[in-house]
């Protein structure tokens, strides 16, 4: 009797263990299956993006690789000249020289050394025609997102009398511990991410862990991936340039740039 009930308990335990095993196997098959489908779609979309870039550059004269550096320099100055014709503040970025600068009517009003940067493989592998089609003239910002308010504006109700005015104490601006990160999307369908950092180590830490604004971006990315998997649709591939500069300069540029600013980039 005793032995019999022991056997029953063992078989029940065995059944449960098998149940867990079956669940784990099915669950992982589903996850791997979905991930594989998503990977396939993701790879396809990169090829499509490159094809689009190539077809847009079609019809232009082939670029002589031995003259590419001079042609890039010419395109860079031409593009900055076009920016100088505008009355607004523009941004120019020279990744070769690790330099980012604000320009107003052709005058460099702010210059900052880029501490660290990375670019999507799309930019590293494009040919000369795609390069000049993309960076041969100023880019226009289409969308702005930032971890801090771009142009903070306070609304103050006027005091009714002298006593009320005296009661309003002038407060010194506090310097909050802000994580300055902003991102813009251009009319040529790629993104520029600017990150405020005070050291390269800090930049890597911030970007890897992702907190605050970056974390929100990661969450959005995961949510959008789920959506594409469920719909079996192709995800969006947007090439990116990530630049790290000192925090106060990242903030100054963010505040100075108009929402539809012109940007010149040299890679």
């Amino acid at each position, binding site marked *: 009797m005793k032995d019999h009930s022991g056997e029953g308990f063992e078989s029940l335990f065995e059944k449960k263990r098998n149940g867990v095993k079956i669940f784990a196997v099915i669950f992982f098959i589903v996850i791997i299956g979905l991930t594989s489908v998503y990977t396939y779609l993701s790879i396809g979309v990169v090829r499509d993006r490159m094809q689009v870039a190539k077809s847009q550059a079609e019809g232009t004269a082939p670029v002589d690789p031995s003259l590419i550096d001079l042609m890039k320099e*010419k395109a860079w*100055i031409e593009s900055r000249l076009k920016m100088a014709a505008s009355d607004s503040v523009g941004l120019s970025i020279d990744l070769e020289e690790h330099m980012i600068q604000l320009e107003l009517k052709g005058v460099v009003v702010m210059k900052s050394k880029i501490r660290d940067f990375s670019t999507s493989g799309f930019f590293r592998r494009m040919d000369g025609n795609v390069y000049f089609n993309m960076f041969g003239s100023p880019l226009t910002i289409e969308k702005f997102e930032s971890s801090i308010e771009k142009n903070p*504006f306070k609304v103050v109700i006027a005091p009714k009398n002298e*006593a009320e005015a005296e009661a309003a104490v002038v407060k010194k601006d506090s310097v909050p511990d802000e994580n300055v990160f902003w991102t813009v999307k251009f009319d040529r369908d790629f993104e520029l991410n600017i990150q405020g950092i005070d050291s390269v180590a800090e930049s890597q830490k911030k970007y890897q862990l992702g907190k605050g604004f970056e974390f929100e971006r990661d969450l959005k990315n995961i949510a959008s991936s789920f959506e594409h998997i469920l719909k079996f649709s192709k995800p969006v591939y947007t090439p990116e340039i990530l630049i790290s500069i000192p925090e106060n300069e990242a903030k100054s540029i963010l505040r100075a740039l108009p929402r539809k600013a012109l940007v010149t980039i040299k890679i």
Partner: protein
Amino acid sequence: MIRTILIYLTILVVGILFFVSMVLFAIPALQESTLVLPGISHGAPGSGDGSVDQASLEKDINKLQAKLDKFIPTDAYIIINTSENHFYLYKGKELIRQGLCSTGKNERLVSEERKKEYVFYTPQGVKTVKGKQKNPVWAKPNWAFIEEGLPIPPPGDPSRFESGTLGAYKLTLGDGYMIHGTIYKRFIGQSVTHGCVRMLDEDLEAVYNTLQVGSKVYIY
């Protein structure tokens, strides 16, 4: 029972973590590796349509650079960073002085009783010095009274005029904006003004003596 639930939960968490790491790291890395076009520096030297050569390109670059350089004023000019409240005084390409200043507080003053609204900010862009004056007298505008909760006096009323408030010099930039001194020196370096640029006495003197009527003022 609890053990079984924990096992199921662990499987779920591991699966989700696997998926998230694939989406955030592995798939983007795979995407990068599938790009097939050759790099910009690759390709056979000498290919191309032959319409450009090195000499003509270098000539074009020098011409364009000269054109771009013409935008830089040859005489004195000033750059004002409203985000950092910092100024940079230049003579041609040489930086001759820099320091702290105060700029607009980015504030909208709403007077519900008078149904009026005043916006205090320093406008960005290129301005020119329209005029220069020593020992300026401040003609207080209406908002100065509204802000202090005082009744607005009629135009020309003696209570509208204050000496010393603007410091020893002022440089007018148009539309009521000025570069001037201040009696509130402890606020220099902060965004506290109604749109004007305030400076410390020595800096203001240097700016006044260096900039001429017509000099450019770059504000960003």
